[in-house]
């Protein structure tokens, strides 16, 4: 059995500011920036350093981010993609979001499956929804969508089918109506 039972209370949480300094110190040059927003630690990491950074966050006992919360992405259209890897530490009570910027054309990064087994499904979902390739993933096939599905549904350029074939019949708010949208 791994982690021994230990009752963590909010009062035992390491202060996020203090934890972010620890993260910055441990990651060193691997992190482009480390800051705290709304009590969550945000770290920017270049794509080439992501596996090493994830490993440091998981293995260093002062960080102990062993809990894989999720992996996903944001499509910034012409400005490329932003992959989010969210890890938590249950012993220090903090959440760390790793941000990785990828280019808009053929985005790819190293798979995290060697570090976190849980990344497997999240990367498959991210690949089919955004068209991001995860190099080294053992089985990068579609997770939700049928094998012959074309396109990447969560990209901003992918129009929702119901809107593509039949425009929304009415303006949803005053702003849209003022801009000349249909009233109903």
């Amino acid at each position, binding site marked *: 059995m791994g982690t021994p039972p230990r009752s963590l209370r909010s009062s035992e949480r390491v202060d996020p500011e203090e934890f972010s300094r620890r993260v910055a110190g441990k990651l060193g040059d691997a992190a482009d920036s480390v800051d705290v927003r709304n009590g969550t630690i945000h770290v920017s990491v270049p794509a080439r350093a992501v596996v090493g950074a994830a490993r440091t966050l998981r293995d260093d006992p002062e960080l102990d981010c062993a809990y*894989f919360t999720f992996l996903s992405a944001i499509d910034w259209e012409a400005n490329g993609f932003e992959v989010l890897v969210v890890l938590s530490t249950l012993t220090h009570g903090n959440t760390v979001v790793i941000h990785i910027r990828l280019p808009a054309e053929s985005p790819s990064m190293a798979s995290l499956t060697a570090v976190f087994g849980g990344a497997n499904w999240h990367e498959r979902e991210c690949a089919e929804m955004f068209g991001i390739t995860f190099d080294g993933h053992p089985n990068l096939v579609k997770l939700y969508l049928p094998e012959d599905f074309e396109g990447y549904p969560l990209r901003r350029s992918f129009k929702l089918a119901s809107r593509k074939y039949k425009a929304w019949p009415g303006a949803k708010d005053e702003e849209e109506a003022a801009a000349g949208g249909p009233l109903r």
Partner: protein
Amino acid sequence: MGTVPEDLTRVPDHSSTGGLHTEEMVLNVGPQHPATHGVLRVLVSVDGERIVRAEPVIGYMHRGHEKLVEQRDFRQITNLLSRMDWLSGINNEIPASMAVERMLELEVPRRAQYLRVILAELNRITNHLMFTGSFGLELGATTPVMYAFRERELIQEALELVTGGRMHFGFIRPGGLKEDVPRGFVELARRGVRQLVAKIPDYENLLMGNEIFKQRTVGVGRLDPALALDHGVSGPILRACGIPYDIRKVDPYLVYDEFEFDTPLGAQGDSFDRFWVLVQEMKESARIVEQALDGLPEGSHIGAVPKRLTLPKGQIYCHAENPLGELGYYLVSDGGNKPYRLKIRTPSFSNISVAAHMLRGAFVPDMIAILGSMFFVVGDIDR
């Protein structure tokens, strides 16, 4: 008259399988199977009665919530999010409103916060009662589900009295609640949780005191804590491994830090412990509801909210302890009145991603005991 053909007399070498020739067989379980609570398919390779490999196949109920919410404003998305885990509508709605409130720095009146806690805990109880009943049913005990639904109905009535709905409530708004609670709610809710607490020993005796139940669940489907962390397993399943991760305690939201309640923990991480934790959690929820009803402050049910909700540019991660585990919304705003991107991290998705490991090496009938104790909702896996 010829001779006996040579290939008829040749004795194959079966030394490794005790003299019997065996083959692996692929068994397709689901997508329509009563033990999958929806449409989950599991591709199981069996060698005799033993599972060699199991691969959950998901996506039969993928509705694309993350895409749909990008077309709707912050008030409209509530009704969509309510439909992910259809057993915990209120719990799904709360963190989405919290994300909006934190980004706008909206103040939520204390009465609204208390009512949110009460509704969320009542919803947790109805969720857990469903699994309490169905787990027994899956193992062949038909009585517990009747008991569980008797208690569930009273609490369901309390939720219906407030929201008008039984499943998809659509009741939480950024800033507070849609309406205040009607007269009679406090008494009905109190009656519901008191009846539940009085009846829980019945469930415990009926199932956890039952020899057959124990044989089916003790030591079955043991989940290693390190593997659980590695896959982001949360909720009762994680706590059954002995890891005290409860967001209501670790990162308190609403007014959870004002109430006394415990975090039940298992030790073995097996099917029995998962069920035990589930049942104990209902008692803790009942404790919270009683305390919140006692201390329910007067005041407004919703704060001062602008007519038009436009969020500043930015990103926020907001998570909450849902009945099945950690529900997280990663909200990205580009300054408009709709989410630019809303990543939904659902508990069932991460929890069921570990099932392949848990099923490996188990017996075929144990698959039901394992999947049944993973307490998942397919709508919550697929979104």
